[in-house]
C-alpha cells in the first residue's frame, strides 16, 4: 500500500507528468526469455507432427524436365511429397503475381523451391529430399541487374518483354532548369550491396489441421494478419479459415514477411491431415530468405553558392532477384523518401526494379531509405569538402522544419532535426575534433556526420488502408490485457503497448500485458514494418485504453456513488476527491464485475491516420509522423592494414516522446551495430548466381568485439508529435539509416579515401591510399 499523500499528489500530476513513460522499463516478457522458457516456432511440437523439408534448385536458371519421387517415397517415415505437378499453378504474390506454390516449368534461382517432403522425422525428410531425382535443363541466366536491363538478356519471365519488374518515376518542379541555374553541380554513383538480416531464429512454421476444416499456423512472422490474406490467396482458401498465431519471434529485421516454406507447410498439412513443422536451416535461410535490395544509385545535385539545395536528380537500378517480394516498394522509397528530409524544390527520380537469377530481395531495416541515405549523405560530405562548406550548417540550412510540407506533400508536423544536429555536435565535441591537427603515425582518427528521416507508417505499402485497432480488456482481477495485431518480433513493442495502456488508464504496468497475436482473437494489424508499431499500433492501443478508462470511470461512479470528475485513477489506485483512502483498481473491478454478471470491461480503439495514397505525381502525405535523427561516428583507420575501427558513436533521435528509454536505447544500439556491420564488412558474395557464403562462418556479422571501445551514446529529443501516442514516433529503422554514411564520412575524414561502394573494406581503403 503506497504512502497516501505522496501518491495522491502524483495522481494530481503535481510531481510527475507520467507514471509509466520515459523510464527504463525492462521488457515484460523478459523472464521467460532469460529462463529459456519462451517458446518460439522451432520449439513447438505436436503429437503426430511431421517434419517438412524443401528440395531447392542447384541451378540459377533451369527448365524442369522431369521429377521422379519414386525412390524418395520409399524412405521409411515419408508421408507426402509434393512437386509443381501436385499443386495449383495460379500466380499470387505480395506486390506482383509472380509466385507459384511450386513451379512446374522452371526454376529461377539457386535455392528456388522444387519439391517438398513431409516425414515422421527430420532425418527421413532430409533423406527423401536427397533421393528426389530431377532432370534439369540449364538455361542462360543473368545475375547483374544492369546487365539484365540490356536488350537480349535472358528473360526470367518469358511472357514479359524485358526483366523490369516495376519502374518508378517521379518528377516535381523542373530539375533541368534548376540544374541549369545551379552554381554547384555534383554527380556521382554509389553502390549498396546485398546483405542478410541474420535474425537468430530462422524462418519457421508449424501448420496444424483445425476444426471446421480450418488451418492453424504458428508462424515466425512480422505480419501475422497480412500473411494470412496472402496465404489464403496462395491456398485458395477464405482468409477467415486460416488462424495465424505468432508466439515469440527471434528477430526479423524485415525478412519475416511472406515466406514460401510457410505455404509449403500448409499444403503438406492439408494433404496429410497432420501437423507439419517446417524450419529453414541456416543455409536455406541465406539462400532463399529475403535479403536487402542491392542498388546502384546515380545522384546529381544542384546547389546555389550559399549551399541551398536547388535540384536533385537520381536514377536507381535495383536488384529484385528472381521473384517479387517487396523490392519495388523499396526502390520507390529509395527514389523519393529522402526528398522529405531536406527542403528540395526540384526533384526527379527513376528507379528500375530488375529481375535477375538471384535470391529474391526484400525488406531490411531502412527499406531503401537506408540505401539512399548512404548515397545522399556521402554526396553531401564530398560537396562540403570540395566547396569548403560546413557539413553541419549545410544540413541545418536545408533540413526540414516543423510545419513544413515537403515537395511530395509530406506534412512534417513535429520535427527536432535541427536540435538533433546541435545535440550531436555538442556531445561529440564535433568542432574540436574537426580542428584537430594533422595526425602522425599510421593510424588516423576521423569523424563523420549523417542525418536521417523516416516514416512511422507508410500509406502506400498496403493499398487498401493504413491504420490499426486494439482492444484493452480489464479483467475482474484488475489486470489489463492488450490485444493488438501488431507484431512484437523482439523489439519490445509489447512492453511499449502495455506502458501506453497503463499510462492512459492509470494502471500499474505490472498488471498489464500484451497478448500474443492470434488472428482468431486479436484485431487485424498490418504488422511490423515502416517503423509503424509504436506510432500507429500504439495510438490504437492508446485510443482503446482511453475508451476503457471512460467505461471504468462510469462504473466507478455508479458503484461508489461519486461524480466522475471527482475520480482520479493513477498507478493502479482510484482516488476520490473527498476521500483520503484510495481504492485499488483490482478491488473496484471485482465489485464492478459482480454487478455485471462477471464481465470484464473492454475498451476498443481505432486509429486511422490522416494520410493519403500518393497521386499520379506521387504527391500526398504518406505517414502520420516523421522521425528524424543525427548520427556522428568517430573511427580510427590503420593506413597500413586498411582496417577501420569504430571508436565512439553518437546517435541523437527525435522520437516524439520516450515511451521506454531502455528499449529505445536497445533499438538504437542494435541499429547502429547492424549499420556498422553493413558499412564495414557484411556482404553476400554471389558468383554466377551462387551464394558463396551462406553461413555464419563465411558471412561476416558483427560480434561483441565490434562494439566500439568507447561507447554508443544515444540521446532522445521529444518533439511531441500530434498523431503519435503521447507524441511518440518510430525508431526501428531511423536507427540504422544514417550509419553507413556516417562511417564512410568518418573514414574520409581520417584518411581522405572516399569509398562509394559498400562495404568499406580494408582493400578499398588501401586501394584509395595508393599514390597516383
Amino acid at each position, binding site marked *: 500500500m503506497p504512502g497516501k499523500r505522496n501518491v495522491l499528489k502524483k495522481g494530481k500530476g503535481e510531481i510527475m507528468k507520467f507514471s509509466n513513460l520515459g523510464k527504463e522499463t525492462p521488457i515484460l516478457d523478459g*523472464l521467460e526469455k532469460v529462463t529459456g522458457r519462451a517458446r518460439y516456432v522451432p520449439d513447438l511440437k505436436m503429437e503426430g507432427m511431421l517434419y517438412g523439408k524443401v528440395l531447392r534448385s542447384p541451378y540459377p536458371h533451369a527448365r524442369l524436365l522431369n521429377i521422379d519421387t519414386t525412390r524418395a517415397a520409399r524412405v521409411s517415415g515419408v508421408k507426402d511429397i509434393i512437386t509443381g505437378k501436385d499443386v495449383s499453378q495460379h500466380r499470387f504474390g505480395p506486390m506482383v503475381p509472380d509466385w507459384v506454390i511450386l513451379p512446374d516449368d522452371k526454376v529461377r534461382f539457386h535455392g528456388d523451391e522444387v519439391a517438398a517432403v513431409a516425414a515422421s522425422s527430420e532425418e527421413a525428410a532430409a533423406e527423401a529430399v536427397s533421393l528426389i531425382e530431377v532432370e534439369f535443363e540449364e538455361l542462360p541466366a543473368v545475375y547483374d541487374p544492369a546487365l539484365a536491363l540490356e536488350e537480349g538478356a535472358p528473360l526470367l519471365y518469358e511472357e514479359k518483354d524485358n526483366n523490369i519488374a516495376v519502374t518508378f518515376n517521379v518528377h516535381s518542379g523542373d530539375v533541368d532548369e534548376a540544374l541549369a541555374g545551379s552554381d554547384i553541380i555534383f554527380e556521382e554513383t554509389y553502390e549498396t550491396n546485398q546483405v542478410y538480416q541474420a*535474425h537468430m531464429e530462422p524462418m519457421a512454421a508449424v501448420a496444424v489441421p483445425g476444426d471446421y476444416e480450418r488451418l492453424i499456423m504458428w508462424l515466425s512472422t512480422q505480419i501475422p494478419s497480412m500473411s494470412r490474406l496472402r496465404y489464403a490467396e496462395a491456398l485458395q482458401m477464405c482468409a477467415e479459415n486460416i488462424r495465424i498465431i505468432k508466439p515469440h519471434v527471434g528477430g526479423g529485421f524485415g525478412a519475416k514477411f511472406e515466406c514460401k516454406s510457410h505455404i509449403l507447410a500448409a499444403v503438406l498439412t492439408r494433404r496429410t491431415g497432420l501437423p507439419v513443422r517446417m524450419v529453414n536451416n541456416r543455409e536455406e535461410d541465406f539462400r532463399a530468405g529475403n535479403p536487402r535490395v542491392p542498388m546502384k544509385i546515380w545522384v546529381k545535385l544542384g546547389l546555389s553558392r550559399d549551399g541551398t539545395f536547388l535540384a536533385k536528380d537520381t536514377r536507381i537500378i535495383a536488384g529484385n532477384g528472381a521473384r517479387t517480394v517487396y523490392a519495388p516498394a523499396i526502390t520507390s522509397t529509395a527514389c523519393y523518401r529522402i526528398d522529405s528530409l531536406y527542403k528540395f524544390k526540384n526533384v526527379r527520380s527513376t528507379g528500375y526494379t530488375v529481375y535477375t537469377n538471384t535470391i529474391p530481395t526484400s525488406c531490411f531495416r531502412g527499406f531503401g531509405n537506408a540505401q539512399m541515405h548512404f548515397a545522399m549523405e556521402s554526396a553531401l560530405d564530398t560537396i562540403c569538402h570540395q566547396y569548403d562548406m560546413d557539413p553541419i550548417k549545410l544540413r541545418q540550412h536545408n533540413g526540414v522544419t516543423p510545419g513544413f510540407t515537403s515537395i511530395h506533400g509530406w506534412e512534417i508536423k513535429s520535427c527536432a532535426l535541427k536540435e538533433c544536429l546541435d545535440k550531436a555536435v555538442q556531445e561529440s565535441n564535433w568542432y574540436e575534433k574537426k580542428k584537430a591537427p594533422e595526425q602522425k603515425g599510421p593510424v588516423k582518427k576521423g569523424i563523420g556526420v549523417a542525418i536521417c528521416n523516416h516514416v512511422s507508417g507508410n500509406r502506400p505499402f498496403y493499398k487498401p488502408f493504413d491504420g490499426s485497432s486494439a482492444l484493452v480488456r480489464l479483467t475482474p482481477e484488475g489486470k489489463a490485457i492488450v490485444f493488438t495485431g501488431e507484431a512484437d518480433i523482439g523489439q519490445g513493442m509489447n512492453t511499449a503497448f502495455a506502458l501506453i495502456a497503463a499510462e492512459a488508464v492509470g494502471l500499474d504496468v505490472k498488471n498489464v500485458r500484451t497478448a500474443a497475436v492470434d488472428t482468431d482473437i486479436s484485431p487485424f494489424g498490418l504488422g511490423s514494418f515502416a517503423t509503424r508499431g509504436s506510432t500507429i499500433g500504439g495510438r490504437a492501443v492508446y485510443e482503446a485504453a482511453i475508451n476503457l478508462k471512460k467505461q471504468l470511470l462510469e462504473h466507478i461512479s455508479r458503484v461508489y456513488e461519486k461524480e466522475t470528475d471527482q475520480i482520479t485513477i493513477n498507478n493502479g489506485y482510484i482516488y476520490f476527491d473527498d476521500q483520503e483512502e484510495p481504492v485499488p483498481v483490482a478491488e473496484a473491478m471485482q465489485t464492478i464485475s459482480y454487478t455485471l454478471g462477471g464481465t470484464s470491461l473492454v475498451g476498443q480503439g481505432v486509429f486511422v491516420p490522416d494520410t493519403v495514397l500518393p497521386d499520379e505525381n506521387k504527391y500526398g502525405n504518406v505517414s502520420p509522423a516523421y522521425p528524424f535523427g543525427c548520427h556522428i561516428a568517430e573511427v580510427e583507420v590503420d593506413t597500413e592494414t586498411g582496417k577501420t575501427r569504430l571508436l565512439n558513436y553518437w546517435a541523437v533521435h527525435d522520437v516524439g516522446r520516450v515511451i521506454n528509454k531502455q528499449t529505445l536505447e536497445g533499438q538504437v*544500439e542494435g541499429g547502429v551495430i547492424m549499420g556498422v556491420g553493413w558499412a564495414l564488412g557484411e556482404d553476400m558474395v554471389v558468383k554466377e548466381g551462387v551464394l558463396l557464403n551462406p553461413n555464419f562462418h563465411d558471412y561476416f556479422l558483427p560480434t561483441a568485439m565490434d562494439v566500439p571501445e568507447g561507447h554508443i551514446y544515444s540521446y532522445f529529443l521529444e518533439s511531441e508529435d500530434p498523431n503519435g501516442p503521447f507524441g511518440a514516433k518510430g525508431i526501428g529503422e531511423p536507427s540504422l539509416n544514417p550509419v553507413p554514411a556516417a562511417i564512410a564520412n568518418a573514414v574520409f575524414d581520417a584518411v581522405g579515401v572516399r569509398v562509394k561502394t559498400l562495404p568499406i573494406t580494408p582493400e578499398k581503403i588501401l586501394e584509395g591510399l595508393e599514390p597516383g
Partner: protein
Amino acid sequence: MSGNNNEQGGRLTINFKLNEKDYTLKIDPDERLLDLIRNRLGLIGAKEGCGMGECGACTVIMNGQAVNSCIIPAARADGAEILTVEGLSGGMENDLHPLQKMFLEKGAVQCGYCTPGMLLSAKAFLDQNRGREISREQIKEGISGNLCRCTGYQKIIEAIYCYAREAERIEERKG
C-alpha cells in the same frame, strides 16, 4: 569414459549429470548433444541458430566450458557434467540467477533467441576468471562466439560487467 557400452544396432549407453540430475540414456552414435537436450530431454532453452558452431545460440556448459552443443556428439557427454539455461534458475517461482536478473535489469534481452547461450557463455567465462578483475574488453572476447542481432551487444556487455563487479564485491565482503 565411463560405462560406454556398445549395443547391437550401434546404440551407446551414456551416463551424465545435467542440471544436477543424473541421467543414463541410450543414444545413437551420430546424435548431437543439442538434439539430446532438446528432443530427448525436452529442454528448449538451447536453440539451433546455425548448426555449425558459429552463432552460439546452442551454448551449454560442459565440465565448466561453454560449448556449442550443435557440433558436439552426444557421446561426448558420457561422464560429463552439463549445465543448460534451465539449470541456472529454479522453477516458476523466479529465483533467478543474479546474472539473469542483471540481463533483465540492464535491457540485455530483446528477441531472446540468443539469450540462453549468451548467459551460459558469460557464466562460463566469469567462472573461469573468478577472483580476477574483469574489463569490458575481456567480456567482449568472452562472448565473441555468441551472435546477437538485436541489441548491438552494448547492454549485454554492461550487464555482464555489472554482475562481475557485484560478484567481486560479494567476494570481498566474504573475504
